[in-house]
């Protein structure tokens, strides 16, 4: 049986930061999706970025490179 995909999610302060990170990660060919913030994770009505947890190091590195502050990085 194939292993179940594990996702991670980045929660942002600003939606603009989400677009900034998305642009950077896309340029590195890291698969991702912008999606609504799951209500059980945050009461914010903003946008979050979902990624494959196996890419979490690259995502953390990307956050550092683009110089944004994020609320949280969570494993789903």
């Amino acid at each position, binding site marked *: 049986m194939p292993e179940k995909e594990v996702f991670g999610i980045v929660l*942002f*302060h*600003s*939606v*603009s*930061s989400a*677009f*900034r990170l*998305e*642009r950077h990660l896309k340029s590195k060919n890291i698969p991702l999706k*912008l*999606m*609504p*913030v799951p209500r059980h994770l945050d*009461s*914010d*009505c*903003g*946008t*979050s970025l979902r990624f494959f947890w196996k890419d979490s190091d690259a995502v953390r590195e990307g956050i550092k490179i683009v*110089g*944004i*502050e994020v609320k949280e990085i969570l494993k789903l």
Partner: protein
Amino acid sequence: MKFIYLDNSATSWPKPPEVIRAVKAFMEYPGASPSRGSHRMSVEAGRMAYECREEMADFFGLKDPLRVVFTLNATESINTALFGILNPGDHVVTTSLEHNAVMRPLNFLRDKRSVEYTVVRSSEKGEIDPDDFRKAVKKNTKMFAVNHCSNVIGSLAPVKEIGEISRERGVLFLVDSAQSAGEFRIDMRDMKIDLLAVTGHKLLYGPMGIGALLLSDRVKEKEIRPLKRGGTGSFSAEECQPSFFPDRLESGTMNAVGVAGLLAGLRWIKKTGLEEILKEARKKFSRFTESLEGMPGLKIYRSFSPQKQSGTFSVTVEGVSVSDAGYVLDENYGIQVRVGLHCSPSCHRTIGTYPEGTIRFAPGYFTGEDQIDYAVKAIKEIAGKCKNA
């Protein structure tokens, strides 16, 4: 009748076809509110707005695209900078060539908030001695506020030199780029600009109702109060304004249609090339002024140096009121110009044309040489008729 638009300093016209297409395309799709939800259309709109922040940051030499704050126009950007940062007891140094977008807020702040300011005098040809800024600095000086390019005579201020002094003296540097952005290269890092007020609808060839305030790292989030507070699409559970850029200064649904047009305008400029745009502006300025030169009774108001000159300049004709000239140019010749004080009484006092004002000619990238020749002929005829009357 021919129809000739020579009022590009008020707003550029016509716009590049790419800009018109981008505005229409955005309204058709995605057309949703950027950053107000995570459905596909909102995300696409938000992505477009973010791309515009990146293009703006790149164009103006700003490292962080999240420090590009969208506003309505340069006036709103300047108001955000002045009202957001200045506190009672602060001092500002500005020039005698400022537009009312700077002077009116400054006078209000002086009268109602105990902010003081000093005006550095320019020569009547727009020469400003940067050292006068150094001399004007006091213990409580918080900001330099400088118009990069005069909307009346097209002269350029020595922004880079003033920027150096602002760093040396620990002062924030606000630049009004309404008449320069899109024609002259502006690099915030190189020129040491901390607050760049930009309008989209003039030389960036975007639509009206979109501008930006670009903030250097020296402007800390908590040091600038927003002009407006409200929904930002972020921190919805919080009933206080977010502390981070751009959300802190961007409340309410943005003019995303305008942003789409601005983005197309920026890309059009990049494609055309700033050097090419400036070369064209100078070529038209030279053709215009050389044809008018020596005309009896005509006085040209322009910069002290051709290297410090935009495409815009002013004239007066002895014995002809500027309002009559404006009326006849439109009515009899189809020529659109702005006459009077151009919302810059301080500048007109400096060049000696207050309170009557001037006739301002502002050709744009799309102005043809035949249109300039036609305008020269019209001015000569008007002056001749008045002389003979």
